[in-house]
C-alpha cells in the first residue's frame, strides 16, 4: 500500500513509518500538520492516509477536519483517523457523508501491529473500521435503549462486531459460532431494528452507524 501519515509527534510518526515500511508498505509522505497533509495527499494520491486528530496549530480537531475534507474531495483515498480519546460524535460525523474507505481508531490500537495494519488495509480497500470502544459507547449510551432492549445479549454482541465493520465469517470466528448462526443473528437484529438486511459489510456498518448515531 502507498500510505501518507499525518502525526505531529515525531517519535510516533517515525515509529509508524518504520513499522509500516518493515511490513512492506510504502510510506510516501510523513507530515506533521494538516496543511502539509493536504498537499501530500494531492501530490502522492496514496491508497490510504493515516491522520491524527490533534495537530498544530490549535491541537483540537485539525486532523478530523482535514480527514473529512480529504474523504469528500478524494473518495478513492482511504482515510483512517486515529485519536487519543474516543469521541463517538466525531466518528459518526466522519462516517456520516459517505461511509466507505473510512476508519476511526483509538491511538492505542497501533500497539497491536497486525490488527492495525489489517485495519489500514480494510480502509484502503474501501471498507470501514470503527474502534470497538466507539461502538461500545454508542451501544452503551442507551439513547435507543427501548429499541435495543429488544435485542438479546448475543445479538448485541453481534451488532457491536457488525458496527466495527467485521464480516460474518470474522464474527463467527470471534464468537466461536458457525457463520450460519451469525447470519441468523444479523437477520434478527436488522429485523428488530427495522433495517433491511444487505449483501456487503459496508452497508451493514452504514446501517448500524446511521441507526446508532442518529
Amino acid at each position, binding site marked *: 500500500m502507498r500510505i501518507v501519515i499525518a502525526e505531529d509527534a515525531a517519535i*510516533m510518526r517515525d515509529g*509508524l513509518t518504520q513499522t509500516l515500511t518493515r511490513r512492506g508498505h510504502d510510506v510516501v509522505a510523513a507530515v506533521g500538520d494538516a496543511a502539509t497533509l493536504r498537499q501530500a495527499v494531492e501530490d502522492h494520491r496514496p491508497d490510504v492516509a493515516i491522520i491524527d486528530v490533534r495537530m498544530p496549530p490549535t491541537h483540537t480537531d485539525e486532523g478530523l477536519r482535514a480527514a473529512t475534507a480529504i474523504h469528500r474531495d478524494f473518495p478513492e483515498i482511504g482515510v483512517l483517523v486515529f485519536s*487519543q480519546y474516543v469521541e463517538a460524535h466525531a466518528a459518526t460525523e466522519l462516517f456520516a457523508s459517505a461511509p466507505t474507505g473510512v476508519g476511526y481508531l483509538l*491511538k492505542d490500537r497501533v500497539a497491536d501491529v497486525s490488527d492495525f495494519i489489517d485495519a489500514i488495509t480494510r480502509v484502503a480497500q474501501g471498507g470501514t473500521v470503527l474502534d470497538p470502544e466507539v461502538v461500545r*459507547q454508542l451501544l452503551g449510551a442507551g*439513547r435507543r435503549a427501548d429499541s435495543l432492549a429488544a435485542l438479546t445479549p448475543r445479538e448485541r454482541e453481534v451488532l457491536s462486531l457488525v458496527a466495527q465493520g467485521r464480516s460474518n465469517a470474522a464474527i463467527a470466528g470471534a464468537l466461536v459460532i458457525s457463520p450460519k448462526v451469525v447470519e441468523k443473528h444479523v437477520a434478527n437484529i436488522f429485523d428488530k431494528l427495522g433495517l433491511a438486511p444487505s449483501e456487503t459489510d459496508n452497508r451493514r456498518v452504514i446501517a448500524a452507524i446511521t441507526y446508532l448515531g442518529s
Partner: protein
Amino acid sequence: MNTYPERVLQQVYAWTRGHPRVADGTLALVLLASSANQIPDHLVFMVGAIAVNVLLATTVALRRRDPTAAFAAGAVIVAAQLAGGLGAGGYPSLGLTATDLAIVVLLYTLAAYRPRRTSVTGLAVCMAGAAIAIGRYAPLHGPRAGAVLLLTIAAVGVTLLAAWVLGDAAAYRRAYYVSLQQRLTAAERARDLEEKRARAVDASAARLRRIERDLHDGAQVRLAALALALGEIKENLEQADDAPTLALVSSAHQNAKEALTELRDLARGIHPPVLDQGLRPALTILAETSAIPFALTVEVTERPSPAIEAIAYFCTAELLANAAKHSAAAHVAIDVREQDTGLLRLAVTDDGVGGARVAAGGGLAGLLERVHTVDGRLDVKSPAGGPTTITIELPRHA
C-alpha cells in the same frame, strides 16, 4: 467642579487639620489679646488677671494634645479664680469675658475628642461652676433682678450645652467618617481578593490544560511508540522459537497498553481536550458515554472563561455519574443556558427515585465546594420518589 472660594477654603481647612498646634496657638493668642482690655488697673489684680488669662490661653493652645487634662486644668484655674474672689476677667462681675470663652472651647474639645461619659461629666462640672458663679455674683436685689438672673442662667446654660452638642456632633461625624473609611478599605480589599482569586482560578485551569498537553505530547506519545515497538517485537518473536522471551515481551506489551489506558483516563480527568472547543462538544461527548438516555440543550452565545467551562463540565460529569449510580432513572436532561442575569445556569434533571442530598464527604458536597470557589450556587430539588433536579449557577468569569 469646586468654585474658587471653596477651593481656597478647602486648602485652609486642610492646612489647619495638618497643623493643629499652630491653629490652636493662634486661637489662644486671639483669646489672650481680646482679654487685654479687661485687665484691671490695680497691680495685684492686674498680675492675677494676666496670670489667669495666660494659663487659660495655654490650656487652649494645648487643648488637642490631651483634651481631658486641658479641660481639667481650665476647670481648676477657673475654680481658683472663683475661690480667690476674682470674677471673670478679674472683676467680681458676671460679664462674659474672653477667657470665659476658653472654658467653652475646652468643653467643646472634650466633647469632640473624648468618650461621651467624660464629656458629660465635663458639662456637669461647667454647669456646677456656672451655678456657683451666678449664685455668688448675680445681683439678687435691685430692679429686674429676677429677670436678669433667669436670663443669665439661660444664656450660660444654652452656651455650655451648645458647646457640648457641637463637640459631640463633631465626634460623631469623625467616627462616621472613620467607619466609612474602614468600609471603603474593606470593599477595596474584597475587590482585590476577588481579582486575585479570579487570577488564581484561571491560572490553575491553564496549568491543568498545560499538564494535559504535556502528557499528550510527551509521555503518551512515548508510551504509544513503546507499545508499537513492543507489539512488533512480540509479533516477530511469535515466528521464532523462544517461548520465555515471548512471554516476557508479551507481558511488557500488555503493561504498556494498560499504562496507555490509565494515562489516557488520568489526562482526561485533568482536562478533557475537547473542552477547548467549548461546552457543547464537551458535554455532547460526556453525555454519549452516559448509561442513561439523555437530552442535551446548550444555549450559550458567548463562551465563559475556561475555568468556568471546566467547572461546568466536571459538575455535569459528576451529576451524570450520580444519576447512573443512584437514581435508577430512565431519562436524564442536561440544560445549560445563559441567564438574563449573566450567570451560567446548569440544570441536570432525572426521572429517578429522588432523595439526593448534600451530605458531608458525598459527591454533591464535593460539587458544592467546587462551585463555591467561584461564588457559584448549587440547588438540589430531590423529593423522595423523584424527580431530581440539580441546578448550578456559575458566574461567566471566575
